[in-house]
Structures are given as structure tokens and as C-alpha cells.
């Protein structure tokens, strides 16, 4: 198979960059592991407010449909249940659906693999009944199945708080949110619900049960308590999914504020492999607005390299998008934006590429 642009992952970043590219008549193929598009939006029933201007505030599940539906009349081929499994010698991407494996030759590749949930280890963490908060949300909102009756949420952050509330609204008894720190970040403090108990300075010492979680030992302020629970949801944050970048010879950098290890990229989200771009949470954990905007910045540079956009138009668009990214990311968490800019500066220095003049205005804002 041959195409102009290949996108790995049909989450919000992949779908949005596909739209930006294919709406210019450029042939685009999207490869996605799942059976339908939307990535992790497919179970996000919460509202997303801080989105780029062309999107009104909407629930994640609606946004998934919005992003997928507008590709219907465009030159986009969607390969569901297909996984990128390697790279051929000529740079083609190896894709498999479990039965057949074939190469896709593309002029440009945008990797939008998103993020994976970090775990948290304690004795018994592999027992059935222990799952990530994301898994609990999938069961509840995609499968319409209650993941358990009496739940403990491990880790207090805006996502785990959101899922805790959603579980509670579906009838799950939330015994408490267990947080190892002694204080919460601003976003978590603002979200505190008095009807869900929060235990700071706490951790799980052990989960036990015959074949599944039945009781959980919790250390709270130094003393141990025994709780009866059948569900532990681990909410320990996200980190970028990196395997495709490893096999595509990209360089990596470590930025704690962006979720740890991530591919190095320039101010247009181009990696060290000049035909490979990154966008979305794979380029550093950010808000939904950031996921969508990074996809548009990458798409603009891809269009320039394919000769669809001229240099001036691309620069004008990129300048606008970076201002939007600055606005949206700093509204949610300015440290994410600063870490991103720092990693881009480092990438340019390391590779001896001057930063585009349009980017200097962004640097001045930091």
C-alpha cells in the first residue's frame, strides 16, 4: 500500500491531523489497533471545555464522533484492527491485522499513539479486581458493566477524581481515594468532592483475596487499616507510548512534566527522523486542547513539505497555532507548556537547527 501520509493511531490527535491533511486533498491512511476510531475519547463522558476555537465544548464521546465523522468525505483510508509492528528496510511501515502483514509506504508518518497509564506496585496488584482508572471507565462507559461494588481509588489527580465521581454516579460505592502525598495540586483541590473520602499520606500495603480482590490493607498516617473492597482503581498518571519511535530511530528526551520519556521534536513536531512527526499525548502528556493543537502544528509542516502549503502560509498558520497552544496549555498547566518549549529548544540546539523566527515570540512568553 502507498500513501502520501500515514498516521499511526486514530485517537483525537490522529483524527485531527488526518482532517487537516486530507481536507487539502492529500491521500491519508490511518492505522489503529481498535475496532472503531476515537482512541481514549470513546469512553470519556466528561466535558472538554478548553478546546481549539473550531470546536465547541463537548463530551469526549461526542468529540470522538465529531472528529471521525468529518473524515468521511475526505481521501482517508481507515485501517481498524491493524497494528504497526515494525519498519522495513526502505522505511515502509509494517502493519498487521493478526492474519496478514504488509508494508505501507508513505512520504510522511505522523505517530499519534497517545499515552498509557502508569501503574503502582503493591503486593497483590496483579489480582483480578485491580485495574487502571481508565480500564474502569472503559467498563462503565463502553461495556456498560460495573467494574465492582466497593472501590478504592489509588492516586488523587483530576482524571482519577473524574472517574471516581462517574463510578459513584453509576452506583459504585467509593470507599475512598488513597493519596501518598500530604497535599494536593491546584486542579485536584478544586475538584474535591466532600462525599468521596480522601485519605492523604496513605498507600496500599497489600491487597488479598481468593482469585480476586477481597480485602485491602491501607496505611494511613502510619497506621494500618483493613478495608473490604472488590475493586482497586490505579490512577497514577500517564506516560507517552514510545515503541514506534524506537523502531523509527527517533531520539528521546526526559521531561517529568510531560510524562517522562518522550521523543525529541522540533518546533514543528518533527522528530530526528525527518519523515516522522509526533503529536498528541505521545509528544508529552497534555490537555485535550493541547492534543488537538499539536496535531495541527504537525499537519501544517507535513503539508509544507508535500508542497501543498507554501512557506509563508505554513509559517503564518504555525505562528497562530503556537499562540493557541500557549493560550490553552497555560490555562490548564503552564508547566507543561514551558517543559515542551524547553525540550524543543534543546532539540534545536542538539541538532544545530536554528529556531524559526516565528518561534522567538513564543520564547519571550516563557
Amino acid at each position, binding site marked *: 500500500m502507498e500513501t502520501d501520509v500515514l498516521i499511526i493511531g486514530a485517537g483525537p490527535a490522529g483524527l485531527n491531523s488526518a482532517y487537516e491533511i486530507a481536507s487539502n486533498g492529500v491521500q491519508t491512511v490511518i492505522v489503529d*489497533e*481498535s*475496532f472503531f476510531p476515537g482512541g481514549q475519547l470513546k469512553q470519556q*463522558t466528561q466535558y472538554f471545555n478548553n478546546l481549539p476555537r473550531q470546536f465547541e465544548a463537548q*463530551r469526549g*464521546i461526542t468529540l470522538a464522533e465529531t472528529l471521525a465523522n468529518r473524515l468521511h468525505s475526505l481521501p482517508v483510508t481507515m485501517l481498524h484492527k491493524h497494528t504497526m509492528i515494525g519498519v522495513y528496510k526502505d522505511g515502509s511501515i509494517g502493519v498487521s491485522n493478526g492474519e496478514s502483514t504488509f508494508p505501507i509506504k508513505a512520504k510522511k508518518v505522523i505517530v499519534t499513539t497517545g499515552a*498509557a*497509564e502508569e501503574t503502582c506496585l503493591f503486593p497483590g496488584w*496483579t*489480582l*483480578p*479486581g*485491580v*485495574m*487502571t482508572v*481508565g*480500564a474502569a471507565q*472503559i*467498563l*462503565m*462507559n*463502553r*461495556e*456498560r*458493566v*460495573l*467494574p465492582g461494588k466497593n472501590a478504592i481509588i489509588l492516586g488523587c489527580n483530576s482524571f482519577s477524581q473524574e472517574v471516581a465521581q*462517574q463510578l459513584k*454516579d*453509576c*452506583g459504585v460505592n467509593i470507599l475512598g481515594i488513597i493519596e501518598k502525598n500530604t497535599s494536593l495540586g491546584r486542579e485536584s483541590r478544586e475538584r474535591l468532592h466532600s462525599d468521596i473520602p480522601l485519605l492523604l499520606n496513605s498507600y496500599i500495603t497489600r491487597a488479598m483475596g481468593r*482469585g*480476586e480482590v477481597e480485602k485491602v490493607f491501607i496505611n494511613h498516617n502510619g497506621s494500618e487499616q483493613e478495608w473490604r473492597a472488590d475493586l482497586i482503581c490505579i490512577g497514577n498518571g500517564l506516560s507517552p507510548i514510545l515503541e514506534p519511535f524506537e523502531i523509527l530511530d527517533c531520539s528521546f528526551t526526559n521531561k517529568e512534566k510531560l510524562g517522562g520519556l518522550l521523543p525529541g521534536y522540533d518546533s514543528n513536531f518533527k522528530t530526528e527522523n525527518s519523515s516522522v512527526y509526533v503529536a498528541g499525548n505521545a509528544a508529552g502528556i497534555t490537555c485535550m486542547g493541547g492534543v488537538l493543537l499539536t496535531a495541527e502544528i504537525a499537519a501544517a509542516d507535513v503539508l509544507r513539505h508535500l508542497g501543498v502549503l507554501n512557506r509563508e502560509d505554513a509559517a503564518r498558520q504555525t505562528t497562530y497555532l503556537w499562540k493557541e497552544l500557549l493560550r490553552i496549555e497555560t490555562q490548564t498547566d503552564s508547566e507543561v507548556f514551558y517543559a515542551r518549549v524547553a525540550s524543543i529548544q534543546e532539540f534545536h540546539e542538539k541538532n544545530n537547527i536554528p529556531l524559526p523566527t516565528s518561534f522567538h515570540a513564543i520564547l519571550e512568553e516563557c
Partner: protein
Amino acid sequence: MYIKDHPILKKDNNHEVTFFYNGTTLKAKHGQTIAGALMANGIKKFGITRKLQQSRGLYCANGRCCSCFVTVNGLEHVLSCMTLIEDGMEVNPNSGDPDVRRGEYGN
């Protein structure tokens, strides 16, 4: 157990499918994954590890952690969270040693 009145989502009208788990006939809804179908029937333990005989079930629900493997129509190590349930599907827990396939793909 199903969520009957979801606080946000509309009632789905997905038709029922019948499948087999460990020889027992169970019901699921079209559009569910195997993992979702098992959890809906109150089954959390999908298998045991070969070496330490530890229980395993759904963990990440995203096809990454490999904790939810089951055997589907004789094929071992299928990700139950990434595979949709089908009418008449024979699902078995992931326990014991796998059968090494011979013939077309074996040696």
C-alpha cells in the same frame, strides 16, 4: 453486572449474543469485548499464570498489559479486551500450558 440506567449514556439497543465460557453457555451484548462480556457475567478471573499460579484478569483494558489473555475458538493468548464477542464464540480461561500448534504453521 450491567449498568441499567446509565446517568449519561442513552440506553443501547444492542442485540444479545450467546457464547461459551469453559463449557458454560453465557449471554453478552453485541459490541462488547470478550473481557466486558465476562465481567458482565460476574467473571473477573480470566486465567492463572503458569509459573506462579497467580490469578489474572482485566487490568488496562487497552491491549497493552496482556493480563486478560483468554483462549478463543482454540487460539491461545487472545487479548480479551481488544476482541469483540461473537455469537457462538468458545472462550476458555488462560490456564496451564499452551497447546503447541502443529500442521500448517507448526513444525
